[in-house]
């Protein structure tokens, strides 16, 4: 566990407290809070070094370019990429996934080719493939989920075949918290001659990640889910793939030469970064990674698993609760429902005590159907949460749901109508 009171590093907690409202933030799978040093890094950038990058021919612009490129190196080393040029900056994990779907998929998939996803994908790893399959005629297949909320590798084996061109799976489910065996999945994909992509939106923020060890061809992440600013994300790809791929967005910075009706492209990663990038966002992401490295990613993972296990045990005591979490390989994400109390109502109940959780389909509707629910409530922990947050959650839940406990039958319909 992380022993230090890390909440102190995040000004939002102190600010809400001083306004007399507690903030027990349990929605970090949606977005995380930001430590002071990330906020300061943005301030510092804009107040001292702001300029456009790459094409600048003066000192200020060189400084800004260096800061931007240092951020790229930082992301690369954080996830074990062989070189900074393997990192493309994007807006978020969603754009990274779309970049691959469009730039690789639109040019390499053909009628009847197969893309394998899984039963527990976020919409961001589903909808882009829907769009691309509509344009190309490629077919989507799915790795089945077992009753213990884990991916069934036998089902991957069954789906893989000569037509498989891509296997794209989520590393850690944002609903179940399941850590998927992406190393095995990538190996199996490669053995079948397919490429492998890993959606790391929920792994990069929460555990040590080494893309070379995983062996994936593509890996995506979102800065705002790992203490960084909004509007910055990254795509990692094997450099040779980036070299071979067609570009995605066209515009400034991504070309060498432009003629009226043709253009030839700059080398990666610039080929994929059209227009002025989110420079401050990259600088802020670097600060976020430095913060995370100071805490230590292994510590973050241990801390969250311990909290997750503890919460699973504590919440199991709540009357009528159903928890969706694997018995092993779970993390600090807990989805649950409570009999006769809709998740949205659960969220309101908790919100009234300053506890922020998420209720809904978590952008994973196909998974909701598998779970046979319309939505769930979800608490997700991060490095700034501790056991007292879990206690507060359980207590507020127990108190709140009592309002919803079975009641006497209402008067028959007619009387209500007649009373008008």
């Amino acid at each position: 566990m992380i022993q230090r009171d890390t909440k102190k590093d995040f000004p939002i907690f102190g600010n809400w407290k001083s306004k007399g409202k507690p903030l027990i933030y349990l929605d970090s799978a949606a977005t995380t809070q930001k430590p002071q040093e990330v906020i300061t890094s943005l301030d510092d950038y804009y107040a001292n070094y702001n300029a456009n990058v790459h094409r600048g021919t003066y000192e200020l612009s060189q400084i800004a370019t260096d800061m931007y490129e240092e951020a790229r190196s930082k992301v690369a080393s954080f996830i074990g990429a062989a070189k900074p040029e393997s990192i493309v900056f994007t807006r978020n994990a969603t754009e990274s996934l779309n970049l691959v779907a469009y730039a690789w998929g639109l040019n390499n998939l053909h009628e009847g080719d197969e893309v394998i996803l899984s039963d527990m994908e976020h919409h961001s790893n589903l909808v882009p493939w829907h769009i691309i399959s509509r344009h190309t005629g490629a077919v989507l297949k799915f790795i089945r989920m077992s009753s213990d909320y884990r991916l069934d590798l036998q089902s991957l084996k069954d789906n893989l075949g000569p037509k498989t061109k891509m296997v794209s799976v989520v590393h850690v489910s944002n609903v179940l918290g399941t850590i998927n065996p992406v190393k095995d999945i990538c190996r199996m994909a490669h053995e079948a001659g397919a490429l492998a992509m890993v959606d790391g939106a929920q792994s990069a923020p929460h555990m040590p990640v080494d893309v070379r060890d995983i062996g994936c061809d593509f890996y995506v992440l979102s800065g705002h889910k790992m203490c960084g600013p909004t509007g910055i994300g990254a795509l990692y790809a094997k450099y040779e793939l980036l070299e071979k791929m067609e570009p995605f967005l066209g515009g400034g910075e991504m070309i060498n030469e432009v003629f009226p009706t043709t253009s030839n492209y700059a080398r990666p990663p610039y080929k994929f970064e059209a227009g002025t990038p989110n420079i401050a966002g990259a600088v802020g992401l670097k600060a976020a990674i430095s913060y995370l490295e100071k805490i230590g990613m292994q510590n973050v993972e241990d801390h969250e698993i311990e909290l997750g296990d503890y919460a699973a045990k504590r919440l199991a005591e709540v009357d009528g609760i159903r928890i969706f979490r694997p018995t092993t390989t779970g993390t600090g994400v807990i989805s649950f429902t409570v009999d006769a109390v809709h998740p949205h109502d659960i969220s309101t109940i908790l919100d009234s005590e300053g506890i922020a959780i998420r209720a809904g389909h978590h952008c994973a509707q196909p998974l909701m159907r598998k779970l046979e629910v319309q939505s769930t409530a979800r608490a997700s922990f991060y490095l700034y949460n501790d056991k007292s947050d879990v206690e507060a959650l359980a207590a507020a839940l127990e108190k709140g749901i009592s309002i919803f406990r079975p009641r006497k039958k209402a008067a028959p319909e007619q009387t209500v109508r007649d009373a008008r």
Partner: protein
Amino acid sequence: MSLNDLFTEIILDHYQHPHNHGLITNPTYSSRGYNESCGDDIQVSVLVKDGVIVDTKFSGAGCSISQASASIMTDLVKGRTIEEAKKLASRFYDMVKGTEGDYGEEMGDAISMQGVSKFPVRVKCATLGWHTLEEAFAKGDIKE
């Protein structure tokens, strides 16, 4: 804002024992409404005879606020003209958005939803049924 202002007795009654639940077999108007923010999903069907709403039902799934609001709505609009129902919808929106006013007389059971105005996050839940009703009218008579 206490939770009791939101989850009133009447709302909880309607949620747990909804009125007019189901689908009209041969409706004059019908529509499906969807609350993007929390996945609530509602189908409203209406039977109109001689300009008067003689029956209306709703089905679907969702939170206490969306379900109770739809249940109350179906009670409330029966026996009224389409114009009256639309006017009621607009008064209802005013109420849950917190516009000052006296809603007691016209709102019937829906007055129990006044507390929603203190919970901005839930306004969309309360208005889903009503929006879907208006949408059904806007789409026009199915039989024509």
